């Protein structure tokens, strides 16, 4: 037996029991029209103060010659990494991965605001909530929508169904079907964070070398 076979996958999660639940999200850049309904819905449902946001749609472009012009819309929000750098560096365990759902969550009581998680997040999506003084970010609406059996606010608000949210471990879910039918990419996979926010790259966007 080779020694390599007993080596664990790097930073694989070692949870013993399988809850059969692991949430993930797909953002289809081809369907997204950059209307920001997701951002507004998130702000309202999760009481996110103005000046900060849990989700941001970044627009680039236009590409092409008038009248055949298009934009690219990229979603910036928590990637819910399997090997989350923020969870690893948090000194108090305030940043943690919910074993049940795979959601990267924040325990507000434990956070002291050292901002190590904000510096550690390679996606730069964490922020200090100016009202609670606590590190804040997207939690897939775990405390608001999911607890009532609803889909995340951004998903429900999206007029073009550019967002698909669901259980990665359910092969019949719309999420897995989307992932299997469309080519997707994830940001900064080379850092080994294994993010669970998938993107479908826009067809019309520019090509960057």
């Amino acid at each position, binding site marked *: 037996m080779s020694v390599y076979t007993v080596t664990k996958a790097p930073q694989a999660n070692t949870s013993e029991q399988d809850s059969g639940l692991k949430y993930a999200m797909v953002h289809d850049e081809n369907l997204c029209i950059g209307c920001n309904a997701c951002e507004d819905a998130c702000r309202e449902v999760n009481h996110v103060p103005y000046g900060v946001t849990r989700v941001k749609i970044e627009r680039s472009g236009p590409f092409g010659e008038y009248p055949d012009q298009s934009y690219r819309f990229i979603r910036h929000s928590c990637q819910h990494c399997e090997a989350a*750098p923020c969870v*690893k*560096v*948090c*000194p*108090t*365990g305030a940043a943690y991965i919910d074993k049940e759902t795979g959601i990267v969550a924040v325990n507000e009581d*434990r*956070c*002291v*605001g*050292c*901002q*190590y998680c*904000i*510096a*550690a*997040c*390679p*996606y*730069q999506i964490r922020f*200090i909530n100016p009202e609670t*003084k*606590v590190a804040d970010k997207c939690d897939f609406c775990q405390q608001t929508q999911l607890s009532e059996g609803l889909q995340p606010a951004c998903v429900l608000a999206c007029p073009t169904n550019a967002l698909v949210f669901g259980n990665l471990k359910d092969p019949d879910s719309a999420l897995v079907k989307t992932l299997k039918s469309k080519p997707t990419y994830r940001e*900064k996979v080379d*850092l080994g*964070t294994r993010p669970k926010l998938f993107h479908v790259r826009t067809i019309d966007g520019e090509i960057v070398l």
Partner: protein
Amino acid sequence: MSAFHFDGLVWHWPIAIYLFLAGLSAGAVFFAIMLKHFKLADKAYLSPFVQAAAVIAPVAVCAGLGILVMDLTKPLAFWKILVFYNPSSVMSMGVLVLLAYQVVLFAWIGSVFSSPIQQWLKQRLPLLSKLLALLARHEDVITGVLVILSLSLGAYTGFLLSALIGFPLLNNPVLPLLFLISGLSSGAAATLLGGVLMRGNPNGVEVRFIHRIEIPMILVEIMLLFTFFVGLILSGGQSEVAALNAIGEGFWGWIFWGGVVGVGLTLPLAFNLWMKVSSDRKFAYVAVTASFSLIGVLLLRNFILYTGQMTGV
């Protein structure tokens, strides 16, 4: 985008001062221990340099921690860091080291200065007197543990930054070593400066001893700095871009070449070499050399902290 305000900046200059003070404290204690062990033996408590280190080390580490607590968004919740621990977090383990370091630091000061303190007490406070006697009896153990803790503290500030995987300039294996060595040299400088200010002999055995170590230490620091940036440049990609942005033109490039390399390393090295050949050391030489080293290390901390955070991948 300016030198002190840019997107992605999380930790500002107070953190750089904390990193500076923690390293300085560790270095001062390290050199006080070396002085006592190799040169002064039982008379160490009479040396103004050891006395200076015994004041500088606790004041610096406490001031640094004070700055750190004030920099939290919830300063009153700082005690939660002391209660909850996360073994995968460098900061969490650093808090443990800092706690142990402070306890052992005070124990060491008590043991080294036990005889003058006992004299001053004159049988008052018998409990404190007994405690001091106990500390003095175990001085060798306390000293050994403190050496390890001071080196851990010196390296910890580097590990704290190198754990940030999104910044190629910070996520660098040489950084903890660079911080350790520069922290030690800042501690040596602070001990020298404090010692001569407390009327220590600028031509004394302590200054000669520390200066002899300082020359190779500056050379090692230059080598580490060189390895740090050449390593980044040879890694290519974003690491190379980050390194060349930091030490190229612009505000931080000036700080690096003029402040860190010029004032912080080249001048102290030149002064040290010159003092080695000239037989007589004077107050001004020692004080100026030490001040330059201190300025250099403080600038290095700021330089690394700011340019590091500029370079998110």
